[in-house]
């Protein structure tokens, strides 16, 4: 893997391909980049793409900061926090968005089958599992409760990895959980009940995650980054248009069971970051005290 050494090169059609490394998380949301790699969208632009998987922000942000990755995948909230803390992060393009279907989105709040909780408002006083605290999960779930007329301050959140959530819900270890695919399908099939589509409640076009790089990398090699952005956009468009292709590619880089792949709900993959939704998220984060102010959009988005 590595390194900054490729930073000075410019991709040329027909020339030596430029090695580029991307850091992603091996989940449903990153299907487009795998599709793009497979379809040759990167190779066409003289980019020899290597995809490395990690477990999220802990590796991807420092990976980009150190020049180890030329770009990486992370959720919007993390990037907003990072930018707020002064990290020179730059968003290249959208990564995954809510599909906007109330009750059919790829992430949802679920409760055990026999739970007295009927809707988001009932969550007041409950313990809700989210994968990371002070992140998109608790922010959006609070919004769901608020919109449902409940008291968003009365809910307690606890951190739990997505893979552990179906079991925790089924065994009643938590009152509710915000789960994403493929664990959402798993939970629903083992009897959990869906009570809210928290992404849709925030914004039905909510941009959840994006691909990003760092300002120094972008400044050093703008042509390469442009080429990457183009390839990403093409990949997104391809994925958005071909959900079957998405399901097919999932079988190659994840280990989700084939039957489950058939049934899971997919996010949408618009190429453009929905600026409005990000602003909404930033405002919610300001309201929750995660950040003081939304970052300057023009600096943040390339």
């Amino acid at each position, binding site marked *: 893997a590595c390194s900054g050494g490729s930073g000075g090169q410019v991709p040329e059609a027909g020339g030596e391909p430029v090695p580029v490394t991307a850091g992603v998380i091996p989940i449903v949301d990153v299907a487009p980049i795998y599709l793009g790699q497979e379809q040759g969208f990167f190779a066409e632009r003289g980019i020899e793409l290597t995809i490395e998987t990690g477990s999220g922000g802990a590796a991807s942000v420092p990976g980009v900061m150190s020049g180890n990755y030329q770009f990486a995948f992370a959720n919007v909230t993390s990037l907003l926090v990072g930018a707020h803390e002064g990290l020179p992060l730059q968003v290249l393009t959208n990564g995954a968005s809510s599909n906007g279907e109330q009750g059919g989105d790829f992430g949802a709040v679920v409760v055990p089958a026999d739970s007295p909780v009927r809707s988001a408002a009932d969550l007041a006083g409950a313990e809700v599992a989210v994968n990371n605290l002070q992140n998109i999960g608790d922010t959006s779930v609070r919004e769901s409760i608020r919109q449902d007329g409940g008291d968003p301050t009365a809910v307690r959140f606890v*951190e739990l990895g997505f893979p552990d959530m179906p079991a925790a819900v089924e065994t009643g*270890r938590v009152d509710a959980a915000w789960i994403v695919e493929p664990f959402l399908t798993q939970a629903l099939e083992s009897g959990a009940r869906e009570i809210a589509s928290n992404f849709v409640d925030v914004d039905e076009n909510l941009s959840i995650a994006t691909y990003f790089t760092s300002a120094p990398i972008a400044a050093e090699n703008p042509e390469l980054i442009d080429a990457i952005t183009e390839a990403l956009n093409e990949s997104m468009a391809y994925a958005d248009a071909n959900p079957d292709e998405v399901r097919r590619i999932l079988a190659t880089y994840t280990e989700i069971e084939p039957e489950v792949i058939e049934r899971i709900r997919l996010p949408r993959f618009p190429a453009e970051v929905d600026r409005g939704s990000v602003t909404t998220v930033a405002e919610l984060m300001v309201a929750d005290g995660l950040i003081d102010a939304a970052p300057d959009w023009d600096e943040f988005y390339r």
Partner: protein
Amino acid sequence: MSRGGGAAARLGRRALRVCALPAGLVALWWAAAASSRSYYLPAPDAVAVTFAEVWFSERILADALPSVVRLLAGFALAAVLGVALGTAIGSSPRLRAFTEPVLEFWRAVPPPVLVPLLILLAGIDDAMKVLVIVSGCVWPILLNTVEGVRAVDPVLADTCRSYRISGFTRLRTLVLRSASPQIMAGLRQALSIAIILMVISEMFASSSGLGFTIVQFQRGFAIPEMWSGIVLLGLLGLALSLAFQRVERSVLDWYHGLRAATRGE
């Protein structure tokens, strides 16, 4: 020199011993941070300021205290378990042969993959976190106890046998005492591992705690805050190890005496 003067000098020497190297290292850190200007490596003064801001607050009660309580509970449980199991396994080669592969198996399982299983079995509350701590820090105690028990002097063992000292008395006066230097080595190891696992246990199914806070700082790119948390962990380790040293000194009184005596000190 007056007695008071002697004591003061001793205290001074001790302070020098404790502080000299850390002072040097902090200076090095300073130099490194100044030259690298890396976002992830803040200067020690920044960390010191942050430390005061972050930890001299109600956080020390809300986050650190419950963590430390869990840490001590886990450590105590691991100590009891490790010594009890270790004594049994160390005294019986058969039992050792029987259990060793399975124990070695568990020993090699990383906590991040063990935690989901523990969540399944023990839930997500304090019990699970204490179990995570136990699951990690029982090993050095267990292994050292096993080896210490195995190494009981055969002449002493024969002495006990010939006077028909068996059962609990034998355990207390022979086995545990003669293995105690090695058991202490294990406990000392376990203490710092317990701190590490306290952090790891709070990376799962948490909403508060020292480890949780540190991880949260890390995720939120609050790097000086994160370093201040690590410093706190180090200080905690230092404090616990000083306390442990006192216990060890009294438990191994005979051992150190014996060593010093032969050298005629």
